[in-house]
């Protein structure tokens, strides 16, 4: 047995594989490698890729999930885009991107910039732990807590009344105008702690000499932020942004608990719509078509986003 030095190994940045030939274990026969891959790929194929192919297949039929099915070609897809409630759910999902992704990232950036100079380590650890909690509790739990906060006698209205803004107090989740933003803010709450902690850690990795250089140039805090901090955090922003955008487009848990898509159809999102169509209305074909559209939509948004990652 080879003894191992337990000291941490230098971590190398992962460049594209072509540039850095990794030593291959030529002692393993070439296809032996598949033995290592097989279990994971098998589970993945059986329970993800296979079902996905089935979803695509179902999307071309009209089917109630139990009895006979009828071929309808692209009709379901047409329905997804023509039906105002189905299309509306896609629109809502995009609106949620603002709350689930953009807003928390902004908050995280500003907060971590302001927190850069906090010296105390104890405070830092405590804050980091607490700020992470929204990521730990299930989304359904967050939704229950916030549903309660948003209720007529809940904390939000309580605070508004206490500071004299009584006229603003309202049933946030039941009001047609405020329901979607209110639901969105739940997602913001879930994400902003993560962004703050992430960007703080990321900032710690930026070379301080860069800051000094630009300060010597006479730059103020804002320019310093724009030219050094932001580019330095590029990787983190894109990765967390990707995760949060997917969370917004594929959202289900929060809306299921908080509003079930109401009032009316104000907060209906594709995830919940798919669930409803498939399991209540028993329109499996239509639900599958919506599922396929959602998947493609996510790709359409996410893939270009990755280009922002590698920049000169």
């Amino acid at each position, binding site marked *: 047995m080879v003894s191992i030095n337990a000291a941490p190994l230098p971590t190398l940045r992962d460049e594209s594989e072509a540039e850095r030939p990794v030593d291959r274990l030529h002692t393993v026969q070439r296809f032996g490698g598949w033995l290592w*891959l097989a279990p*994971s790929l098998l589970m993945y194929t059986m329970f993800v890729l296979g079902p996905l192919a089935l979803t695509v297949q179902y999307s071309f039929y009209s089917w109630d999930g139990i009895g006979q099915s009828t071929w309808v070609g692209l009709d379901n897809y047409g329905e997804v885009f023509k039906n105002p409630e189905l299309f509306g759910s896609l629109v809502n999902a995009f609106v949620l991107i603002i709350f689930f992704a953009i807003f928390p990232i902004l908050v995280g950036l500003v907060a971590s910039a302001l927190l850069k100079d*906090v010296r105390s380590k104890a405070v830092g650890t405590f804050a980091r732990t607490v700020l992470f909690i929204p990521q730990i509790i299930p989304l359904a*739990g967050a939704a229950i807590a916030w549903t309660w906060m948003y209720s007529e006698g809940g904390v939000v209205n309580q605070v508004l009344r206490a500071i004299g803004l009584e006229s603003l107090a309202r049933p946030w989740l039941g009001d047609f105008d405020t329901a979607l933003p209110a639901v969105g803010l739940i997602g913001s709450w879930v994400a902003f702690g993560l962004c703050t902690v992430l960007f703080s850690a990321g900032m710690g990795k930026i070379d301080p000499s860069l800051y000094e250089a630009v300060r010597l140039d006479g730059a103020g805090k804002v320019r310093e932020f724009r030219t050094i901090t932001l580019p330095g955090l590029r*990787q983190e922003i894109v*990765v967390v942004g990707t995760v949060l955008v997917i969370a917004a487009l594929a959202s289900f848990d929060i809306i299921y608990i908080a509003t079930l898509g109401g009032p009316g159809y104000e907060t209906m999102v594709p995830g919940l719509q798919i669930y409803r169509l498939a399991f209540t209305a028993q329109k499996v074909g239509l639900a599958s078509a919506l599922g396929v559209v959602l998947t493609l939509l996510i790709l359409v948004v996410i893939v270009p986003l990755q280009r922002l990652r590698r920049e000169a």
Partner: protein
Amino acid sequence: MVRARVQIAPTIVLALLVLLTVLPLVSLFSTALQPQGTVPSGLTLPRDPHWGNFADAWNAAEFLKLLRSTLVIVIGVVPVSVLFATMAGYALAQMRIPGGGIAFGLLIFGLTLPFEAILIPLYLQMKALGLLNTQLAIILPLIGLYMPFSVFWMRSHFVNVPKELTEAAEIDGATARHMFQYIQLPLAVPAWSSLAMLLFLWTTNQFMLAIVLISDPTKRTLAGALGAFQGERTTNVVLVCAVSLLIITPTTLAFLALQRHFVKALLQGIAK
């Protein structure tokens, strides 16, 4: 003087953020202590804290049964997923596998897949296998669904292991299995242990699959059971709050105990 002033702003910001973070949970807590059957207003200091509500919540949620069920699911999902993913990540990073690139590409695609897209076929599949309303109905799909992220995670680790290590071991006559079991695996402890923590968290918090594939709330995950306690005809807001708190407690406790490793793992992961 300047330093003191600079310190105040960040402290206020921090305090605000922390306050905002805990407010919903505190509101849940204060409500959970009110007498059952009332609709208390927002955040009120309970004059007469009804601690017994938590005992009622324990029974109402059949908490022991729920914990056991969640444990079963976690034990079914996490070790297998970590093992399979570590093997695959290792292979993809350190071996030349014909078609390995395609396999990896397929997995990467899975990173963006919304679970809703495969909900219906999964349901029908589990029904055909006779597994509906059993823990296996969640365990099997979750393992598959976790593969993209897990393989990516482990591969990212193994890709960064310098080949001098494998060289040295080979000269000593080690085989792939030796390499894996005695060198790479111990080396990769931070990577796969943090993966395990993440998967544990995501599994206990899995909601959608739980409510669709398992109709008995006590056979679901912790989060899935919440689905049974929110509904138009529950008659007890106070109890719902107590149950919610009860349900989020185990994972929160686990997190608090391991938070240092946890946060470090997540941050590293995103940095990769």
